[in-house]
């Protein structure tokens, strides 16, 4: 890959290319930001369970601030940035769960970290995450938009209003999409939920 991973200017350019339909840009983007995001996210999961939900904010914050500080991120890019960040967050959390499976937790007793209060049945620190990941992949084949909404809302922690703004949807549509996706995912996952 020709890009210098420390140059956020390239990240912005890639976001632009991705927006214009260059799907290859997405994997480049992922490669450029993955290690950073992953390191930060891992830190979060290890330490953070305040309010018993996952806080994606700080993670996205760091990347976002880095981008806007050095390269004025425009509104059109912002939408893409968040869509991208949400996808990355999902990938990172699943990877983290995969690693965690091989590392036995000290103390023996496990503590659940619900991914989001709305879907508290998914333990972000456990095996539920693979199941969720593959369920989302499956749902994506028929309901792509709903999966993007789930990512923004549950993985990135956007509010419904913000999700609507970022997706260019009406808020009512976002609520319906969530209702449907949640139900669909629960049906798919309930036989194997860790804490359920």
């Amino acid at each position: 890959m020709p890009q210098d991973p420390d140059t956020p200017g390239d990240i912005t350019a890639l976001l632009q290319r991705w927006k214009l339909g260059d799907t290859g840009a997405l994997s480049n983007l992922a490669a450029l930001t993955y290690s950073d995001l992953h390191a930060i996210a891992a830190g979060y999961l290890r330490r953070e369970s305040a309010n018993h939900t996952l806080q994606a904010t700080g993670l996205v914050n760091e990347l976002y601030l880095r981008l806007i500080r050095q390269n004025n991120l425009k509104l059109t890019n912002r939408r893409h940035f968040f869509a991208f960040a949400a996808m990355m967050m999902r990938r990172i959390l699943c990877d983290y769960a995969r690693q965690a499976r091989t590392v036995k937790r000290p103390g023996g007793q496990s503590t659940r970290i619900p991914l989001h209060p709305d879907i508290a049945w998914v333990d972000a620190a456990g095996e539920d995450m693979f199941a969720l990941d593959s369920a989302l992949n499956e749902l994506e084949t028929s309901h792509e938009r709903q999966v993007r909404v789930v990512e923004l809302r549950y993985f990135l922690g956007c509010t419904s209003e913000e999700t609507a703004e970022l997706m260019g949807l009406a808020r009512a549509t976002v609520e319906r999409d969530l209702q449907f996706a949640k139900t669909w995912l629960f049906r798919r996952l309930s036989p194997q939920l860790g804490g359920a």
Partner: protein
Amino acid sequence: MPPPEQIEQVFHETMDLPQGVDRGEWLAKRCAGDEELLREVSSLLDANARMAGWEAKSEEPPRLPAGPFGVYRPVRLLGHGGMSTVYLAERIDGQFEQTVALKVMAAYLSGPEFLRRFQTEGRVLASLNHPNITKLLDGGVSPAGEPFLILEYVDGESLDSYCDRHKLPIEARLRIFVQVCDAVDYAHRNLILHRDLKPGNILVTAGGTPKLLDFGTASLLEADAAVTVTRARMLTPRYASPEQLRGATVGVASDVFSLGVVLYELLTGAWPFGTSPSVLTDLRRAAGEAVGTQPASAITQEAAALRAQPLRRLRTALSGDVSAIVMKSLENDASRRYATVRELAEDIDRFLQGRPVRARPQTFGYRAGKFLRRRWLPVGATTVFVAGLGTATAVAIQQARSAHAEAVKSQQVSQFLTGILGATGRAQFDPQKYTVAEMLDAAEERLAKGPKQDPLIEALEHSSLARSYMRMRLADKAMAQLDQAIPKLETLGDDGALADALEAKAMIAQDRGHLDAAVADWERSLAILRRMGRNAPAVLVFDAKDNLAVTLSFLMHSQKERARQLYGEAIAMARKDASIPRTALATCLAHNAELLSSDGKDREAEAMLLEALSTGRQEDPGGQWEFSPLFFLSGMRASDGDSRGAKAYAAQLVEVANRNVGPDSAEVAQAKLTWALAAAKTGESDRAAQAISEAMPVIEKSFASPSLDLWFAGRNASVVMRMAGRYAESERYARLSLKVARDAHIGPSDARLGNSWEALGEALCAENKFVEGLDAMRQAKSIYEKAGPVWAAAAARVTGRLAEIATKAHSR
């Protein structure tokens, strides 16, 4: 398989069915034989129901850890912290009847970093001994390897729910909050930051004592920066400061911010930055782009009920000083917040005692307003004086350079203030026997003859004395103090204090009609503020721009383009910067409207005046600031030929002045004059003349030539008296206004000079002194003709009158 859109569609339709409709039956009908669709949607509905069941079940309490934890065992769960769980616990050995709070660190979190943090909390708490901070009793590690702390158990509820349940009014909430501040300030003085202040970490006992909990994220102020940064990520975003959200190193100001959010919520029941925190609001806050909503705007009917106050009253209570205090704590820029929690608490105390608060942007108008309002309270003159002078001094000090020096200075200045009282040479000082002016003179004498002190403090004292004299309308004495202060501040290079002193000087020059001098001082002040960049106090910049624009346009009628630009900048600045009072913005809008109207844009001007009224009323309905917009609105209605409308606004003006400044004031006299002008035109010329003869003596005593206030009053009084048939008085007032216009340094083609000539001409002709009268009218005509297109109508009017009067003179 049916198409996904259809499944979705039918699923939503079924979910949306009203209660009581049999879903199964409805669905079977809806699917009309499409078995696959029916099966698919049914299974989704079933999953949805099970999901709801799971959510209900998950609320069951988790089991208690086995322990033992020292000599304690957990009894029931109290709550979850960021990285620990808190239980109610009791002694195993039953030696004492003692319930305690047991804080157990989450096992999966254990690791060297977390163990260290946990131990930090233990050390921190053990070192603190304050009635509003929970005490640490014991600590250790359980057999299962879980670190734990034993804390004093506080049987109470969180700060917000306590206040709401008891429906505490604003003052009671503020009193509890001040105690919380004391606890935080105590911790700060022990070099400990809390860093996770929120209502849930503040419990209030049944007796109403707040107790600060959870030093789990506390850090020592002197801890090394790297550790602080790592730890900064553990926070509650709702209460976190922008710098915390950025993951930057945080200081005392960060706790001030969190307390600000807690206070805001206590007062309004709402979060200052929107409905609730989310990724986007957090990012905006981290980037320093979010500005909190004014408390008065955030209040709802429901919140008002929980504060046992009607909505409107609560809105009023939450504007002004309270708003200034909260918003100063919530500044994005840490350096613009209160420097310490103590200062925040002191300002709240000041508010509770009805004294001027420091958070309030310090403009002359505000201080005068606060001062005048207080004059009606039954308090001794000393208190008024000291508080007033103290505030003025505080401004100067606020703008002084180093934070450390500030503490020393403020102490010395208050010693100076105490000294003033002794300077009268009486052991028993009786404030009732001395006027404020006499006390200021005593202060001046002491400053002139007293022992030499730090030159900066001396300069600041001269400045603050000048401000106090200005408040008393003792312009000469104020100027003498400024003449001493300014060279000293120039030598010392204290930009903020210098800009402030120059603005004061400009204000006096403008009052005296020395407009060129005023402009020069404001320009200098602005240049200094520009040089200070981001450190320039926003209010000073705003004031300088507004005042300079007033002088350039309204008073000098010369550089209108520059004035337009300055107004634009000042208004844009105030719209963005909540630290500038809405009332100041309203006044600035009124000034700008005057400029628009002088360009003939009356419609726009009137709209702007109405905007000014609604803007200022958000903060201080019926306050002194309403003077400018009401005054101009009355004038606009009058020039539109709507004398009734003009009179209605003028009546409001009299009321506002009466209420805010008192019946014998220059402001009430000016308001009466405006009313008289409108009343004379609606046929009430006798009452109008009566109002003039009440108002003019006050005005002539309050303003010395070449004050433009005096010019304006003289011209209007002349017009009203002529309409009432009192021609000799009309002539006298016209001559007064002409003298002022000549004394003032306005240009030879300034329309106001024409105005005065016209009034004089009309008065003289009414007295049948035609030769002199016609001469005056010709002067007026030639000035109007040179004054620009807006005055063409006036020129035409005078030309017409000249012809009429000449005919009349001939016929006699």
